[in-house]
């Protein structure tokens, strides 16, 4: 754990934590945001808007249940539209959190300590947003529970060869594990809040959630083991989730879906968009709550580098897809490639290439890697690009498949847009609440980064 103790780590870049901090300052600064700092009007405005968007989503979904999926733009042959696009997009975003907390933990990337907490929160909210779509996109949502194996009067079961059933298991597992991971991480900090808070209700609530944590050495020991084990479990899990999501397509025979490259480049894409979202949240937050000392240039740098790397993997994925389209000699795959480049949806495709491949290349430039505004912008571009990627995969592959006679077009309706934007609102609303009532940075893990945390050998 050498570098963990070294503020000035591998790189001569900024430290993971600002100078002049002690256990006390770290603790106070972070817990203050929740306990003492007055809630800004900005927070209320932001939360209000997000909340209204959430209501809009609920309205759209309500109407959907009344009238049926026909209010959306989907049709035959394009049986899946925005719902699945958004589902994959959100799930992808939901990958950063667990990745940061689990994989980087295993890799002993101590800089993660200051961003993992809200990255995990972000994951949970993103996965919840994603989870909405598969549920509401079915024709008879009130029967969606048939996807779970339970003893029923029909003596009939889910069909386990279907990737959709795999989805159900993968996503619910992912959500559960992420939740546990997040909560376990929270327990010691909740104890901190319990002991810091002045108001009785706060003490009781935080106290209850802290489960009576008292920082006993035995507890810490088991805690660390469990935390490490969880990380070990979450790592293959996070990789598996988007692999399974990619199976939804790869298992199908639709040209543009039926390809083996999908799992790796879906996972890469997921991390790609995940980090983009993390930055889009981290940059404003650190500014608004003055956390530049904890979320330093270093973090932005590293995230940018991760994006650059995953972005290149994604680019490779596109390249291979295109290559196989031509190389396979399969007339349908070849046409799918042509259709993406020249068909009616050519513009989204080119836009996707620009957003996901060309723009992010500027991250090679150190200056931009370290400039928050630039990163914020680029992250936005990447999120749009990743959404477009899913649109291309889902819609453009479906709209022209084998029989020319049954080719069609897809036009999203206002209900599609309302539901999509609504989920963004829901996501933000949750984030607003989170930063207000829970420590958005893992306090106890920050403490371990301080020099004084070191135990001097006698």
């Amino acid at each position, binding site marked *: 754990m050498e570098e963990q103790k070294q503020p000035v780590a591998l790189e001569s870049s900024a430290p993971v934590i600002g100078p002049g901090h002690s256990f006390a300052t770290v603790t106070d600064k972070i817990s203050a945001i929740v306990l003492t700092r007055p809630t800004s009007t900005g927070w209320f405005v932001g939360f209000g808007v997000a909340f209204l968007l959430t209501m809009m989503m609920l309205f759209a979904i309500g109407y959907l249940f009344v009238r049926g999926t026909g209010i959306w733009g989907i049709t035959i042959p394009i049986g899946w539209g925005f719902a699945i696009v958004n589902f994959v997009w959100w799930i992808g975003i939901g990958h950063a959190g667990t990745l940061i907390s689990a994989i980087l933990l295993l890799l002993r990337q101590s800089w993660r300590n200051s961003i993992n907490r809200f990255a995990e929160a972000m994951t949970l909210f993103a996965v919840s947003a994603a989870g909405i779509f598969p549920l509401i996109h079915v024709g008879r949502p009130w029967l969606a529970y048939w996807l779970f194996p*339970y*003893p*029923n*009067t*029909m003596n009939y079961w889910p069909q386990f060869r279907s990737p959709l059933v795999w989805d159900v298991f993968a996503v619910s597992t992912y959500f559960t594990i992420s939740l546990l991971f997040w909560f376990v991480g929270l327990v010691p900090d909740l104890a901190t809040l319990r*002991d810091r808070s002045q108001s009785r209700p706060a003490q*009781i609530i935080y106290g209850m959630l802290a489960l009576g944590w008292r920082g006993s050495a035995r507890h810490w020991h088991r805690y660390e083991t469990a935390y490490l084990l969880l990380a070990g479990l979450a790592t293959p899990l996070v990789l598996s989730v988007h692999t399974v999501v990619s199976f939804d397509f790869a298992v199908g025979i639709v040209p543009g879906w039926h390809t083996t490259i999908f799992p790796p480049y879906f996972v890469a894409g997921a991390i790609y968009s995940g980090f983009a979202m993390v930055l889009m949240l981290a940059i404003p937050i650190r500014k608004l709550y003055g956390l530049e000392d904890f979320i330093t240039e270093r973090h932005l740098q590293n995230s940018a580098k991760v994006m650059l790397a995953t972005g290149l993997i994604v680019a490779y994925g596109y390249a291979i897809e295109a290559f196989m389209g031509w190389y396979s000699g399969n007339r349908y795959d070849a046409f799918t490639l042509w259709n993406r480049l020249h068909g009616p949806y050519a513009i989204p495709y080119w836009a996707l290439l620009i957003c996901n491949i060309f723009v992010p290349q500027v991250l090679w430039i150190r200056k931009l890697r370290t400039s928050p505004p630039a990163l914020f912008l680029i992250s936005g571009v990447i999120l749009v690009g990743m959404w477009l990627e899913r649109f291309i995969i889902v819609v453009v592959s479906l709209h022209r498949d084998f029989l020319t006679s049954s080719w069609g077009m897809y036009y999203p309706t206002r209900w599609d847009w309302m539901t999509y934007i609504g989920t963004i609102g829901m996501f933000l609303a949750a984030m607003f609440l989170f930063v207000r009532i829970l420590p958005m940075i893992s306090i106890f893990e920050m403490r371990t980064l301080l020099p004084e945390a070191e135990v001097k050998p006698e």
Partner: protein
Amino acid sequence: MQIFHRSTNTISRATIYGAIFMVAASLWAVLELQRSPYITYAKVARPQPVPFSHQHHVAGLGIDCRYCHTSVETSSFAGIPPTRTCMNCHSQIWTNAPLLEPVRDSFRSGKSLVWTRVNDLPDFVYFDHSIHINKGVGCNTCHGPVDGMPLMFNYASLQMEWCLDCHRAPQKNLRPRDQVFNMRYEQPSILKPVTLDGKEYTDQLSLGTDLVKKYKLRTVADITSCSTCHR
């Protein structure tokens, strides 16, 4: 500084175990409800315009099923007797029993009696009486001891698992064709053997297996295919 009272330790644990138990219990309750007579109407007599007693007519007077349910051997639908069938006798006997007024009224006015359907399958299930009769499934195998029912109710749950129970092992229930309408028929036993083609059977399984062959039943895979009942 102590926030909580000692007791909270016990309480908090109790709540955790309690929650787990509650969830499990409610799930179990729902599954039970699905199979309960409240949902299936099993063994629950329906309100009828006339309190017609199968017990009296079948056991008491020994009227054959087919006297009223005329199309049971030839059609998917067993048939509900027209008012005329009732009047065949009741123009002679019980001619002014107040109970039978609705029947007489129907016959006079020509307005049909409106019964409440007893054995009512969902509309997406297609059941055919004639083929079951033909393959040696007795009336009371599904309808129960009708000759003992003062008021009619459906004997079984009529749920898919119940249908499958027999479709997966028809030999458990088959009987010789000539016994299909016999309400008193009992499955073969040492005491009451059943003879078929001169052969004596003392247990249902061997009889059933032979009948499956004799009546050329389709394979279990065949009769558990979805389109056997759903289309």
